[in-house]
C-alpha cells in the first residue's frame, strides 16, 4: 500500500524541527570546550552543509519527481549497493535516535523528573514515536504542522528572553580555525539531519517553485539556532562550559516573572515537543530504510526490531551523560559520513548522469 504523501509545507516544518535536533541543549557547552566562543562558527559551517543537502535534494527531486531514492540507487547501482546504502542509513538513524534520547533524557531527569527512572521516559516516548512512524507520512506531516505555531511561539519567547539577558560582546577569532574544524568533526554527528529528506523523497509532493519553501523553513530554523547560540555564548562567554542545557539556562537569567514562577519551564515544553517529533521523523526514516533492506517484511517488524534494539542499547551500553558524549564523539562521526559524504556524492553522480542523458 502506497504511503500517503506530505505536502511541501509539512516537509519544510519537518526540516525546521529536525534542524533543532541536539543543537540547543548539550552541544554548545561541548563545542566551547574545544573551540571556545568560535563554537558558533561550527554551527555556520554545518548549516552550509545542511543547506547544501537541501539544494541537492531539490535538484534530485526536480529531475526524478515520482521516484524514491532507493529506486534511483537500485537502477543505477544495483540491488546490493542499495541494501548496503540503506543498512548504513538505518544505523545512522538508529544512532541519532539513541543520541537524542539520551541527551533529552538527562535534561528531563535533571530538571523536571528528579526521581523517576528511565523506564518512565521510554514508556512515554516509545509508543508515541512508534505510532507516528507507523502512520503515514501525511499524518506525521500534518501533526507537525498543527504543532508548528506552538513551537514557533515558544521558540520566539525563549529566544527573546534569552537575548534580553545578553549584555557582553565577547571577542571573536580568539581560537584558531583548526579548533573550529576539530570541534565540527568531533561533533559532526549532531549535524547532517536533513538527510531524512532523501529517505522521504517519494513521500513529499513537489511542484515547481517549492524549493523556496524548504529554504525558508531551513533558514528560519538556522536563524533561531544561531540566535540561541549567540544568547548562550554572549551571556556566559567564559563560563559556557558550566551550562549543559543551553536553551534552558539562558532563560534562567530571568527571575520569577510577575509571580508566574520559573518561566524557563516553557523551554522544557518546547524540548519535549521537539523531541517527540525529531524521534518520530528519525524512526520513520529508520522504518523506511528497514523496509528497503527487507522489502517483504511489514513495517511492524521494523518497529519491533527497533524497540528491542533500542531498549538493549539504552539499558546496557549508554546510560549516562559521559557515555553519551563518548559515544557521540567516537562512534557516531563515522556514521555521519553518510550524510556528509555518501549521499551528496551519490546525488551529484545521479545529476551528472541525468544531465548526460538529457544532453544525448
Amino acid at each position, binding site marked *: 500500500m502506497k504511503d500517503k504523501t506530505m505536502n511541501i509545507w509539512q516537509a519544510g516544518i519537518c526540516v525546521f524541527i529536525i534542524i533543532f535536533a541536539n543543537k540547543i541543549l548539550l552541544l554548545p557547552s561541548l563545542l566551547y570546550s574545544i573551540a571556545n566562543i568560535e563554537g558558533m562558527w561550527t554551527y555556520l559551517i554545518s548549516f552550509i552543509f545542511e543547506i547544501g543537502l537541501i539544494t541537492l535534494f531539490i535538484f534530485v527531486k526536480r529531475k526524478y519527481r515520482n521516484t524514491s531514492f532507493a529506486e534511483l540507487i537500485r537502477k543505477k547501482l544495483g540491488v546490493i549497493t542499495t541494501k548496503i546504502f540503506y543498512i548504513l542509513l538505518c544505523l545512522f538513524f538508529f544512532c541519532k535516535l539513541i543520541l537524542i534520547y539520551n541527551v533529552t533524557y538527562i535534561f528531563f531527569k535533571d530538571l523536571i523528573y528528579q526521581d523517576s527512572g528511565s523506564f518512565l521516559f521510554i*514508556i512515554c516516548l516509545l*509508543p508515541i514515536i512508534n505510532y507516528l512512524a507507523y502512520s503515514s507520512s501525511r499524518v506525521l506531516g500534518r501533526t507537525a504542522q498543527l504543532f508548528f505555531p506552538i513551537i514557533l511561539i515558544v521558540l520566539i519567547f525563549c529566544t527573546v528572553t534569552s537575548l534580553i539577558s545578553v549584555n557582553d560582546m565577547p571577542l571573536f577569532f580568539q581560537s584558531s580555525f583548526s579548533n573550529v574544524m576539530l570541534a565540527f568533526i568531533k561533533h559532526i554527528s549532531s549535524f547532517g539531519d536533513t538527510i531524512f529528506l532523501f529517505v522521504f523523497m517519494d513521500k513529499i509532493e513537489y511542484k515547481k517553485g517549492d524549493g523556496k519553501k524548504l529554504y525558508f523553513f531551513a533558514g528560519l530554523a538556522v536563524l533561531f539556532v544561531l540566535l540561541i547560540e549567540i544568547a548562550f555564548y554572549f551571556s556566559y*562567554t567564559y*563560563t559556557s562550559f558550566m551550562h549543559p*542545557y543551553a536553551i534552558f539556562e539562558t532563560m*534562567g*537569567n*530571568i*527571575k520569577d516573572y510577575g509571580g508566574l514562577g520559573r518561566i*524557563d519551564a516553557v523551554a522544557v515544553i518546547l524540548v519535549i515537543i521537539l523531541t517527540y517529533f525529531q524521534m518520530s521523523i528519525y524512526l520513520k526514516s529508520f522504518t523506511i530504510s528497514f523496509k528497503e533492506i527487507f522489502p517483504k517484511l511489514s513495517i511492524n517488524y521494523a518497529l519491533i526490531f527497533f524497540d528491542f534494539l533500542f531498549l538493549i542499547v539504552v539499558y546496557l551500553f549508554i546510560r549516562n551523560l559521559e557515555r553519551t558524549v563518548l559515544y557521540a564523539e567516537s562512534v557516531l562521526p563515522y556514521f555521519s559520513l553518510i550524510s556528509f559524504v555518501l549521499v551528496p556524492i551519490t546525488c551529484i553522480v545521479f545529476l551528472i548522469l541525468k544531465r548526460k542523458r538529457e544532453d544525448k
Partner: protein
Amino acid sequence: MKKLKKYLSYAFRVPMFIVLLFIVIVYGLPALGKDAKVDEYAIVTAIGLDKGTGDEVDVSLLTFVPVAQQNFAEKYKVVKASGSSVLEAIDYAGLYLGREVGLNHVKTVVINEEYFNENASVEMDYLTRNKNLALSTSVICTDAKASEFLETVQKMDTESSIKVDDIIDFNNKFIYSTESTFETFYKGLYSKTKSSLVSFISLSEDIDEGVTVSASGEGSGGSGDTATNSGEESQKTILNDGKSILCKEASKVALLDNTGMQKLNLAKGSFDSGTLVINNFTDDVFHNARLTFDIQNINIKRKAQFVNGVPVVNMSIKLYVKLLEAKEEDLEIKENIDIKNISKEAINALENKVKSSIKDAIDILREYKCDILKVYTLLNNSHPNATKDFMKSLDDEQDFLNHVIFKVSPKIYSV
C-alpha cells in the same frame, strides 16, 4: 479460549489502549498512593553557609513548613546541620526534617564572611553544580552567622511580611548597592582579573543603627526539634546599608561602604535609582546649601584607544538629574521650582562631583587590582593585538589598570 482470543484481537486493534492500560497499571495504581511532592520535599527558600568546627561546614536552611490553615500565612523554620561538605550537611538537614531537601525555590544564599576570607567558590561548588538552583539566586555575604541571619529573616517575614528577597531585588537597582547573583559572581570570577562584587548585609543589635528592618522578638516556633534554634529570643535586625565586598579570586579584598558603592556604580552606570549630593553650594539662588539631586537616567559610553602603546579609555557620561531637595537656612524661593533649570554652577559642581567619584572608584579598583568595570574586555574587543602587546609589556598583568588612562567627561542634564 476462543472468546478470549476474540476479545484480545479487538483490543490489539488499538495498541494504544494496551499502552494506556499498561501505564495506568504500572504507574497509575502506585500514583493512587503517592503523596504530593510538596509533602515529600522540604521547600527551602534560603540557604546559609557558616564555617563549622574544623573543616566542617554548617548549613542552615530556611524551610517552608506547610500548616493546615485557610488564611495562607506562611510559616518558616530554620534548620541547621553540619557536615564535611555542603551536600552532606544538606542531607543531614533532610534527615532532621524527615524529608528530602528541595532547592528549587531557593532565592537567597547567605555566606558567612569567613568563607570570603579564603576562597568562597570552594564551598559554593555544590550549589553551582546543582541544576535546581537558578542562576538568578542571590548571593550575599554577612559578618554575622548565616544561621542567625536566616532566623532574623524568618522573624521579619512572619511579623512584617517584608522579605529579604525584596530587599535584595531592590539592591540590584539602587546606586548604593549591586546586583549579586551566582551568575554575576562567576562571570566576575572567570574574567581576566577574577574579580566580583558581592552584596554585604549584616545584622545589628542596635535598632537605631543606620537603616534597619526590625521584627519584634518572638520565638521561632520550632518546639521539640533539635535542629532549630528555639528558646533564645533574638533581638537582632537586618542592616542593609549598601555595603558590598570586593572579591578577587572569590576571596574578599575590600569592604566597600555605600559611598564607595555609589562611586563604583556611577562608573559602571548600572543602577536605576540614586541620588547625588552637593555640599556648600553657592550660586544666585543658594548660599552654602546642600543640594540633593535625583538621578533619573544615566548613559555611559566608553571608547578605548591606544596612544603610543598606552591604553586610554574615554568615558562619556550623560546624567539626567532633577533637583529634589535644597537644604539651606533662610532659603527664599521666589520662582516656580519645577520650571527652573538647575544653574550652570550647579551643573559644574555636579560634573566635578561625578568626576571625583569616578576617580575614587578607579583608585579603589587600581588599589585592589580588580577590573569590575570590564576595562580589559573593552580594550581586548576593540584592539586585541595592541592589548596583547600591552599586557605582555607589564610585569604584573593583574595590575594593568594602573597603566590605563581614564578620561572622564560627564555631562549633566536637567530633567
